[in-house]
């Protein structure tokens, strides 16, 4: 994306292009469906959730297909964002100062770029979990075709799948909390695509500088 195109009128910056927003919501929609149907099979106390989604056999049938959609979206995120998600020295310093971040003392944080270290962790956590969920999920999809002498595949998949899902649930809760409640403006960025200049300066000063440049004056 051309940097000057990211500078919008009325003191706003374009943070997410349409294809980034679309990918995010395909992944999110598929994930929420997977989460709901998965949790229904995880606990008898939540089995009723599957009924809401059209019944347990339907949920069982569609869950793996939603998984494929989810994985495709995460893979495309990898293609788009992997280079921006590299761990840097700023990230090291960010993790050292993470207690300030979690107690809303953002002025004490090292200047993050387009993504702060926590967001990068979220990305890689979701990426590798998606790989593990796909690999174990395919085994759970067709257990009847796994030959008896390869049954260890079933035995490990039955553990890996929910364990990886639980890990993503932790990431997911924090992600939603940050995006909807803690960092006001972040939710809009993934709906409309833009953030205010104040948002950019406060949370992603490195990114702000990169786009606007220190000397150049952005359009009003």
């Amino acid at each position: 994306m051309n940097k000057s195109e990211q500078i919008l009128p009325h003191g706003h910056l374009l943070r997410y292009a349409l294809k980034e927003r679309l990918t995010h919501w395909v992944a999110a929609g598929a994930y929420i469906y997977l989460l709901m149907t998965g949790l229904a099979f995880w606990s008898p106390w939540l089995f009723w959730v599957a009924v809401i989604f059209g019944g347990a056999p339907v949920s069982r049938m569609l869950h793996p297909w939603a998984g494929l959609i989810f994985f495709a979206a995460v893979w495309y995120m990898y293609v788009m964002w992997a280079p921006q998600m590299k761990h840097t020295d700023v990230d090291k310093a960010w993790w050292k100062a993470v207690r300030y971040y979690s107690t809303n003392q953002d002025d004490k944080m090292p200047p993050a770029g387009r993504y702060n270290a926590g967001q990068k962790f979220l990305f890689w956590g979701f990426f590798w979990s998606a790989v593990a969920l796909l690999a174990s999920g395919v085994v759970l999809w067709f257990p009847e075709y796994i030959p008896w002498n390869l049954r260890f595949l079933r035995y490990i998949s039955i553990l890996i799948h929910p364990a990886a899902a639980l890990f993503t649930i932790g990431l997911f809760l924090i992600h939603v909390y940050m995006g909807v409640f803690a960092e006001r403006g972040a939710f809009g960025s993934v709906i409309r695509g833009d953030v205010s200049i104040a948002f950019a300066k406060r949370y992603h000063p490195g990114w702000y500088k990169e786009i606007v440049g220190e000397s150049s004056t952005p359009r009003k």
Partner: protein
Amino acid sequence: MSQAILRVQKISGHAGSVPGEGTQREYTVCKLIDTTTCIGCKACEVACMEWNDLPFGETVFDNTYQTMPETRWNYWNLILFNEHVREEDGSLMWLMRKNQCMHCAEPGCLAACPADGAIVQYTNGIVDFQQANCIGCGYCITGCPFDIPKMNPKTHRVFKCTLCTDRVSEGLEPACIKSCPTGCLHFGSKDDMLDLAGKRAKQLREHSNFPHAGVYDPPGVGGTGVIYVLHDATKPEIYGGLPSDPHVPWTVKLWKGPLKWLGNVAMVGGLIGLFVHYLRFGPKAREEEDINPSGGKP
């Protein structure tokens, strides 16, 4: 399928109490298979198909006395054949083992199943699949240490031997028992069958040349509702791969036990933690501040 006469003591994927638990004193029923008198005639295979009205499927000839490689969703009872050379004297033995669901006291299939009521265990010990409640996930296949539950690819429901629940609930013996011409199959209470099996094994040890004869009633799954008399109880594997010490896979136990608790505590704790965090710290910045940036005009 469901039998109103029989009460249920265990239900798969069930939240809350089990209606029939502890309400009825029932004999635990048991099938005794004496492998030493089985001649591999397969009358029991046919009787099973007949009584349970299973559609006929193609058999597979592999140059042995075995009808097909393993049980199928519509073939619940299979005589496994093995030509065994005895170490003691080099003599040949034709081992026949009637293979079917073992009706475990602690069934791995039931422990693994997520669907409410898809697998039940009656107070008489029979483990029965209720296809109407099955969601076709195949977790039972992973939970079973005996490779018994089989998926119907068309309906995506799992089937296996019912121990002729419908006959037993009417006071009849299972169809296979009725058909056996040599009397190597017996049916009765678990206590009686263990007694009979013990006597037969003793007879084999003392009066025949089988010093290792014994009874197969594996404790790893809490004992089974199908027990065997074996010529050599120290080597159950030679009988078509009968596991010597079957257990519900430890990963299945870990998944349904500690992982479930840990996961539930973590999820609920996480939700509460985030809520409290918000009460304590609130948002990082108010929305108004972002809409009217005060932090220096750009």
